[in-house]
C-alpha cells in the first residue's frame, strides 16, 4: 500500500459517483478531440509555404475572373518568381453527388509554385506534355479507384464546350502525394489550354493566380506593386498571402474557430462546475477520516497532495479515455471523409493541449477540496460524531 493506493480507494469509494464523473469528463474530452480534428481540417494546407505564397484575385471577389493578359503582366513585376494561373472547374464524376474539386491550370508553373506536391519524375513530365492529361491527388484517386492510364470524363456544372458537351475527357497521367502530410491531395489539376480552347463562353480568363517571389521578405512590396499595376483598370486586383486568402475563404463558413471554441468552452465550464462541486462534497463527507489521518501524523501538505491527486487521477482517467474514443472516431471518420475533407486528424499539438487541459482540469477541481482537507482541524472534526 502507498499513497496512490489511498488516492485510488478514496476516488472509487462510491463507484457510481466516480464513474459518472469520469463519463462527464470523458465527454468533454471526446468533444474536444473531435472538434479539434475538425478544426484541423479547416486549417489544413496552411503551412509555411502558404504563408510565403501570394494569391492575386479580382478585387470584387475571387469568383469574378481576371483577364488572361494579367498572367504575362504579373510575370513582369519586379520580385516575382513564378506565377501560376488557375480556374475553378466545378466538376463531378459520373453523378452530380460525386463532387470533384478540379482546377484548370498551367501545369509547369503550378507545380513550380506548389513544391509540396510530390510527383514521380516520369509522371510529372507526362502530365506537362500531354494536353488532355490530369494530375490527381492521392486521396481523390483512391476514393474513385483511378490509376495512371485511366481515362475519365469530368463533368462540369458551370462550364460548357462549344459543341454543347459538359464533359471533358481527361487522362490520369499522374498521381500526386504530399510529402509532409500538410497538403491536401483531394483535388485534381488539368491543362488550362485544353479547357480554355473548348469553352463556349468565358474564355481567356482566370479565377486566381498563385505566385512566389524571389524573397518572401519582399512579399508586401510585390503585392502592392501588382495591385497598383491594375489600379483603375476594369479588373482591379487584390493580392494577399495564400494563408490569408484561405482564411478569408473559410470565413464563408463562419468563424469556425470561434464556434468550436465556444462549444468546447461551454462543455468544459459545465463539467468543471459539476466535478468541482462534487469533489468538494465528496471530501467534506470525509472530514473525520482526514482528521484521523492528521492525528496519526500525516502532514497537511501530504494530505493536500493526496486529495489533489484524486481529482488529477479522475481527470486523467476520464480525459484519456475520452481522447482515445475521439481518436477512434476521428480515424474512422477521417478515412471515410479523406476525399471531401482532408486533414481530419487528431494532431500531436491537439493531443498535447488535451493532456495539458486534463492537468489543469484536475488541478482546478482538486484545489478547493485539497485546501479544505489541509485545513481540517483535528479537535473540531473529531468532536463531530
Amino acid at each position, binding site marked *: *500500500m*502507498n*499513497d496512490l*493506493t*489511498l488516492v485510488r*480507494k*478514496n476516488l472509487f*469509494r462510491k463507484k457510481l459517483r466516480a464513474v459518472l464523473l469520469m463519463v462527464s469528463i470523458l465527454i468533454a474530452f471526446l468533444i474536444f478531440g473531435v472538434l479539434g480534428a475538425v478544426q484541423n481540417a479547416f486549417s489544413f494546407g496552411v503551412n509555411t509555404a502558404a504563408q510565403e505564397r501570394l494569391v492575386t484575385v479580382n478585387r470584387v471577389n475571387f469568383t469574378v475572373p481576371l483577364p488572361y493578359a494579367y498572367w504575362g503582366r504579373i510575370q513582369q513585376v519586379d520580385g516575382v518568381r513564378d506565377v501560376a494561373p488557375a480556374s475553378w472547374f466545378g466538376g463531378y464524376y459520373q453523378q452530380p453527388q460525386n463532387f470533384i474539386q478540379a482546377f484548370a491550370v498551367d501545369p509547369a508553373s503550378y507545380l513550380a509554385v506548389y513544391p509540396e506536391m510530390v510527383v514521380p519524375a516520369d509522371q510529372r513530365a507526362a502530365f506537362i506534355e500531354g494536353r488532355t492529361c490530369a494530375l490527381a491527388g492521392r486521396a481523390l484517386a483512391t476514393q474513385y479507384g483511378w490509376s495512371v492510364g485511366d481515362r475519365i470524363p469530368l463533368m462540369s456544372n458551370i462550364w460548357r464546350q462549344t459543341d454543347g458537351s459538359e464533359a471533358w475527357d481527361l487522362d490520369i497521367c499522374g498521381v500526386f502525394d504530399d510529402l509532409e502530410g500538410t497538403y491536401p491531395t483531394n483535388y485534381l489539376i488539368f491543362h488550362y489550354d485544353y479547357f480554355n480552347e473548348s469553352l463556349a463562353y468565358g474564355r481567356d480568363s482566370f479565377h486566381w493566380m498563385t505566385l512566389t517571389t524571389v524573397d518572401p521578405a519582399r512579399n508586401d512590396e510585390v503585392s502592392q506593386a501588382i495591385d497598383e499595376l491594375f489600379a483603375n483598370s476594369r479588373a482591379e486586383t487584390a493580392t494577399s498571402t495564400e494563408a490569408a486568402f484561405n482564411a478569408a475563404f473559410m470565413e464563408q463558413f463562419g468563424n469556425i474557430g470561434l464556434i468550436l471554441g465556444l462549444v468546447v468552452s461551454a462543455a468544459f465550464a459545465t463539467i468543471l462546475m459539476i466535478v468541482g462541486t462534487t469533489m468538494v462534497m465528496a471530501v467534506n463527507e470525509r472530514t*473525520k*477520516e482526514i482528521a*484521523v*489521518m*492528521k*492525528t*496519526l*501524523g*500525516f*502532514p*497537511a*501538505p501530504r494530505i493536500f497532495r493526496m486529495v489533489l491527486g484524486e481529482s488529477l487521477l479522475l481527470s486523467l482517467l476520464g480525459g484519456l479515455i475520452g481522447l482515445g474514443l475521439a481518436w477512434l472516431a476521428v480515424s474512422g471518420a477521417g478515412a471515410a471523409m479523406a476525399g471531401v475533407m482532408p486533414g481530419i486528424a487528431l494532431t500531436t499539438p491537439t493531443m498535447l493541449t488535451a493532456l495539458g487541459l486534463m492537468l489543469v482540469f484536475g488541478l482546478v477541481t482538486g484545489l478547493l477540496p485539497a485546501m479544505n482537507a489541509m485545513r481540517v482541524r*483535528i*479537535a473540531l472534526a*473529531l*468532536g463531530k*460524531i
Partner: protein
Amino acid sequence: MTDATPLYELKGLSKRYMRGREATTIFDQLDMTISHGDFIAVMGPSGSGKTTLLNLLGGIDAPSSGEVRFEGARIDNLGQGQLAKWRAANVGFIFQFYNLMPTLTAAQNVEMPLLLTKLSAGERKKRVKTALDIVGISDRAGHRPRQLSGGQQQRVAIARAIVADPKVLLADEPTGDLDRATADEILQTLQLLNKDMGKTIIMVTHDPAAAKYARRELHLDKGRFVEKELA
C-alpha cells in the same frame, strides 16, 4: 533524557474557550506529571475536560497558557508540521468509535502509520502482522471495518495505535461503545500492552469497572485533579 525525566510534565497549564465574549475555563494553572510505564484512568463528569486533556497531551490542541513537556522537551510551542512528526513517532491514538478507514482492510488500516516511516513494504507487512497478532485479530486481516464487530474494530484500532511502536497510548473512552465482556477483553489487551510492552497509557473512561484496569485513577472536576492510587 535520563530515567528520572518523567514522560509528561504539565506546568501551569490553562485552557480557555471563548464563547462569544464569555470565556469558559476548562483548566486553570494545572500541574501534573506522568511517568514512563504508567496506566492512568481519567474520569470525571461530562464536559469536565477529559477529551481536552488528551488533545493537549497528544499535541492536537494547544493550551491557552502553560507548558506541556514530553521527555523534557516542550511540545506546546511546536508548529503543525513538527507536531505531526512528533505524533507519528511517539503517540498512538485509540478512539471510542474506532475511526478506521472504511475503504481499507484491517491490515491496510494498521499499515497507515507505517506509511509515515521509511520502512520497506516487506518490513511494514511484518510489523502489521505482529501488531495484529498482539491484539489477536490476525484472522480478520483482510476484512473491512464494516465486516467486523465493534470489539474487533477496536482491536484493529489498537493494532494501528501500536504498530509504529509509540511510547504512549491515548485512549478516549475505548470501551464506551462495547458490551461488558468485549470491554473486558479490550481492557485486558491494554493492560497487557502496559505491563508486558511498557506502553504508557492514558485512558479516559466513564466506567469505574474499566478504571480498575489502570494503575491509578485521576478524577477531573472543575479544572482540578483528584488522585486515587489503585492496588
